[in-house]
């Protein structure tokens, strides 16, 4: 069952504020769930003005949070062997080859491991499908996941199974 956005829950908008001593706090509000990007920017601007009128702290950031949840009919229970401290560490790289992005998927399936080693071959069909989904995104090539700095990921570089505090060199 796919994760779905609950349109009955309002969007949560949070402003981050900092005072003269560098201490941080936040102010949160609920917004209509049906608004567009343009509308959201309008709400943010209006509320920023209101907060600036009330507070003498510095307004640093405005963040809207969207939540996606499983439907009530989703009954999947992770098997007893599942363990989120085991990770599948996957490295992706951008088109230049210089910029990488590392992702950790908890509790990798044991079928990914070959001959008792922690390395997962890139030829593994499940891993290949996962990598394609990350690189291409739901909208197709050129619209996939990126690095933290916004570099488009173009291919998978490597994958290995690790355990917390026991990361193996690739």
């Amino acid at each position, binding site marked *: 069952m796919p994760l779905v956005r609950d349109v009955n829950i309002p969007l949560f908008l949070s402003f981050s504020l900092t005072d003269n001593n560098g201490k941080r706090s936040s102010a949160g509000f609920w917004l209509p769930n049906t608004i567009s990007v343009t509308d959201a920017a309008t709400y943010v601007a209006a509320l920023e003005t209101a907060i600036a009128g009330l507070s003498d702290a510095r307004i640093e950031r405005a*963040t809207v949070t969207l939540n996606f949840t499983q439907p009530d009919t989703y009954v999947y229970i992770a098997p007893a062997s599942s363990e989120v401290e085991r990770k599948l560490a996957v490295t992706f790289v951008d088109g230049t080859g210089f910029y990488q992005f590392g992702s950790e998927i908890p509790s990798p399936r044991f079928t990914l491991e070959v001959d008792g080693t922690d390395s997962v071959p890139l030829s593994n069909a499940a891993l290949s499908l996962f990598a394609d989904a990350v690189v291409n995104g739901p909208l197709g090539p050129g619209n996939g996941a990126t690095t933290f700095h916004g570099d488009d990921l173009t291919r998978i570089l490597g994958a290995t199974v690790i355990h917390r505090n026991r990361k193996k060199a690739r």
Partner: protein
Amino acid sequence: MPVPLTFIWKDNNGKKAETRFWMPDTVTLDNVNAWPSHLETAMLLVSDARIERAEVRWNFPLSLNTTAGPNSDVSRILMLFYRNEGDPAAVSLVPSPGALPLDTVGAYRGVRLGLAAATVSGLLPDLERIADGTLTPGGTAWPGAFRVGGVTRQEEA
């Protein structure tokens, strides 16, 4: 600016973990819905844990270039209460309410009713702007002309 998409997992022992991806800046509020289910399907090919939920945190640019005042202190908080008849109340916190006179906020422990905050000259337009621009946690608008109350609090040192 990439947009973070975070998945929250749980294993059979109830332990939780997170996985984060960065979506391209071409993602909008209108087309972001396709991302979580797309990556959920892909990740479940390689994992047997349960994905509990996903969260997208969207940063918006600010239009005002505010600076912190010399007496600003975010441990002083103006608590705004909004309530409709029959609805749950919503509370919004505005840190360092410098627009309020210090003797209104006061230096004291705990919580003290400060409904006077809504009557301080010049503040009502900003308070009403908040009430007009936001919803209750249940997703309904705030009706009525006077729907803002204020309480001030100073956290213990």
